[in-house]
């Protein structure tokens, strides 16, 4: 799948909690997807986070309209705050080396309390990819029951795992 296709895929990836639609998310959940193929030589990382949770983490108010993500008047410091937070709670290491994640695109989808912020990163990576270490502890500093599901697709091999407060990092070998 091309990175562009992956982006489209993630835009449609339903982040809704299992229960969905209500006054709050019954389950604290994020979804992320990591993809790489030797052919493309591009590591694509996508995060999909509840916008309410992002606001809570960055400006301490789940209902704040201050940052205006993905709008024409997005706050100039919005991306900085986002990256500073993610750098603390999320990383990828390929073959033992940290990946410098740069935002390629951001997009909002969904309605009401279920609005999700999709963030896509890209990184050029020469083959072979033999190991992938993932840390995903986003929002575990806010919610004791935060679960972060990670879908991994490396050279056609699909693996998935769940990370959270108890197990924030995991290394996969290929």
């Amino acid at each position: 799948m091309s990175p562009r296709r992956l982006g489209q895929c993630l835009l449609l990836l339903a982040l809704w909690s299992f229960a969905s639609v209500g006054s709050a998310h019954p389950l604290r959940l994020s979804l992320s997807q990591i993809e790489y193929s030797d052919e493309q030589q591009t590591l694509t990382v996508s995060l999909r986070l509840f916008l309410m949770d992002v606001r809570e983490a960055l400006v301490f108010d789940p209902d704040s309209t201050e940052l205006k993500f993905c709008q024409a008047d997005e706050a100039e410091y919005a991306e900085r705050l986002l990256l500073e937070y993610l750098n603390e709670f999320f990383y990828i290491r390929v073959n033992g080396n940290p990946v410098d994640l740069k935002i390629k695109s951001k997009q909002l989808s969904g309605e009401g309390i279920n609005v999700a912020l999709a963030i896509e990163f890209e990184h050029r990576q020469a083959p072979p990819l033999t190991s992938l270490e993932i840390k995903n502890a986003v929002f575990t500093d806010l919610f004791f029951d935060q679960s972060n599901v990670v879908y991994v697709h490396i050279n056609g091999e699909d693996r998935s795992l769940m990370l959270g407060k108890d197990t924030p990092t995991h290394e996969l070998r290929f």
Partner: protein
Amino acid sequence: MLIRQTVSIVCLLALFLGACSSETETEVAAPEPSAEDAEAALIARAMEIHDRVLTADTHADTPLRMIEPGFDMAERHDPNESGSKVDYPRMKEGGLDAIFFAAFVAQGIRDDDGKSRAKALGLQMIDAVRDSIEANSDAVGLALNPDDAYELEKAGKRAIYLAIENGYPIGDDVSNVELYFDKGVRYITLVHATNNDLADSATDPKGPEHDGISPLGAEVVAEMNRLGIMVDVSHGSDEVFYDAIEMSKAPIIATHSNARGLVEHKRNMTDDMLKKLAENGGVVQLTMLSDYLRDKPETPERDAAFAELSASTKPAAEMTLEERAAVRKARMEINEKYPVALATVSDAVDHIDYIVSVAGIDHVGIGCDFDGGGGIDGVFDASEVMNITIEMVRRGYTEEQIAKIWGGNVMRVFRDVQAVATELQAEEAA
């Protein structure tokens, strides 16, 4: 309500008999039991019933937990620390005899890549459950048929059934239904939070796409009928429910839904749906999600604490990383000090009472949705499910009624689904 009237009549009868007894046997009236003693006796009686009946929970998203590196179902976890709601020790503590572990796959793009990845994830979770059962065969067993739960209970083991939440991993290949059946899957929830190729979701912001179940979804329902897989309509739109009633040759199930007559929520079932479900011979399994059980309460102290904190902090963009971390910590402390009150066991049993009054005692069961957001005050995890029984006993439900609610009804539906499958396969062979 009928159940409560029954309780009153039973109480009056007991008082009358008690009075007669005191006249004939002794001249000194026995002291009235204290409220504490009466409560202890009620709990003891409820626990005996809880122990005797088959207790089956039809919906837990625990397979997602099982792909967490290092997560061990044989270890007891603290739900307030880890968020985990089910493991084998807590099933034993709660007297939960059987559970359906649903492999949940979030809806993604509906192309070949997306479907094939959904299938891979679904199979990974199913295999994780089967591996866990094998590794803990002294405590649990894989259950494939209704009787397996009763047999495993006799053997002192917990029964683990398999299910899939969201038909997305079926893709557009109906033969996958048989693949999942062969893996042990015994119900499939047709759709989840957004529409898929099979059916419309109750909660897709884009609204209906198929006006219920699609032609492909109809094929899948027919194949589920042929194999003996229960058709789960939870998460489906109202039209999906009515289509399933129409299309399915076997009774259907809603594995985790409540009554819309008590709480207006698209995921809950209307009175008409409950009545139709009863006519169909199906069952709705009550779920322990606060927002489906009661209207959200006011939280003035919590709101005031957050307002006070906000007033004392400078704009986030001007803070150092350390200052931001400190504010997040303070907010977490407020969350812990003034949590939004969860629904209670009483709220949950109100829904049981309501469904019984609309659909009848034979059409309600329990599907807590643990590890999928479920968990209320008093039934926060698998170790506390006996509190549902205690509340039912308090309201006058008999052991026979409780046995139906806790497992008898869903197992009846399961048997009916298998009987239909046997007939269909015989017709096919003829």
